[in-house]
């Protein structure tokens, strides 16, 4: 009973945050409601027994990734979005189709599947077991993700750097001759 109450409490918070993400027109409000969704999802992971995953969800998703989003929103000074004609067509055609599909899947899951129940208090997903699995059975994918992260870092640096600044840096031979940086310091 307690488990069901906790599940419903965090589930309602989660869905309310997701709907608020759709309803808000300003991106910073959407980002903050996405943080609410991720925090309540961490509680749901805890109810499912994945304690380490709940901690990682809060640290990585609600921490690191959302900080990236919020910094980008502040950097680009993003304002409220405006409605256009294409979005109305998407609402008229896409929303009913997606909702019908979701209702079908939910009906199948609730009444036509034989899933077992999960008991509260059983915590199989501790750091020790996760690490044993990650560093033995999934060692090769783990190493490949390090290459992926490296490529992502290089791609982000290349894409986000200003092309004219890179060209100027290549044009000047000595590091002393960088007038744009010196000038920027004096203006402040």
């Amino acid at each position, binding site marked *: 009973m307690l488990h069901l109450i906790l599940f419903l409490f965090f589930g309602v918070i989660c869905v309310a945050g997701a709907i608020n993400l759709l309803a808000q027109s300003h991106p910073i409000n959407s980002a903050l409601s996405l943080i609410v969704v991720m925090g309540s999802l961490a509680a749901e992971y805890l109810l499912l027994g994945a304690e380490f995953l709940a901690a990682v969800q809060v640290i990585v998703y609600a921490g690191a990734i959302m900080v990236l989003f919020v910094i980008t929103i502040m950097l680009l000074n993003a304002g409220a979005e405006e409605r256009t004609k294409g979005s109305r067509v998407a609402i008229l055609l896409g929303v009913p189709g997606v909702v019908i599909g979701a209702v079908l899947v939910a009906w199948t899951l609730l009444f036509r599947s034989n899933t077992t129940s999960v008991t509260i208090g059983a915590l199989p997903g501790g750091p020790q077991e996760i690490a044993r699995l990650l560093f033995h059975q999934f060692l090769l994918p783990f190493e490949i993700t390090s290459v992926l992260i490296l490529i*992502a870092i290089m791609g982000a640096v290349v894409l986000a750097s200003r092309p004219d600044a890179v060209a100027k840096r290549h044009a000047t031979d000595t590091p002393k001759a960088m007038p744009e940086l010196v000038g920027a310091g004096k203006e402040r």
Partner: protein
Amino acid sequence: MVPISYYLVLSGILFVCGVLGFLIKRNIITIFMSIELMLNGVNLSFVAFAAQWHSLSGQVFVFFVMVVAAAEAAVGLAIIIAVYRTRETLNVDQVNLLKL
């Protein structure tokens, strides 16, 4: 005692909210956040199935999804910054040329 199917329905609702946001939102950053919402819904179903089959492999998969999401967020937000620098807009209807 909560059936696993309740968790799966919750993950389906989250995924549907992500798809709807992808369809109806026009701001490119909000569309990106809808993708993150879809990934979170899939993660919840992974954890639910891991609890169903008493296997931790599903939870390890969630780690890989998180790594891919982090890399995708870094590269995608850098692309958004590059697009904004050339177009001066975040509306996806006005970003209709591949050439930067």
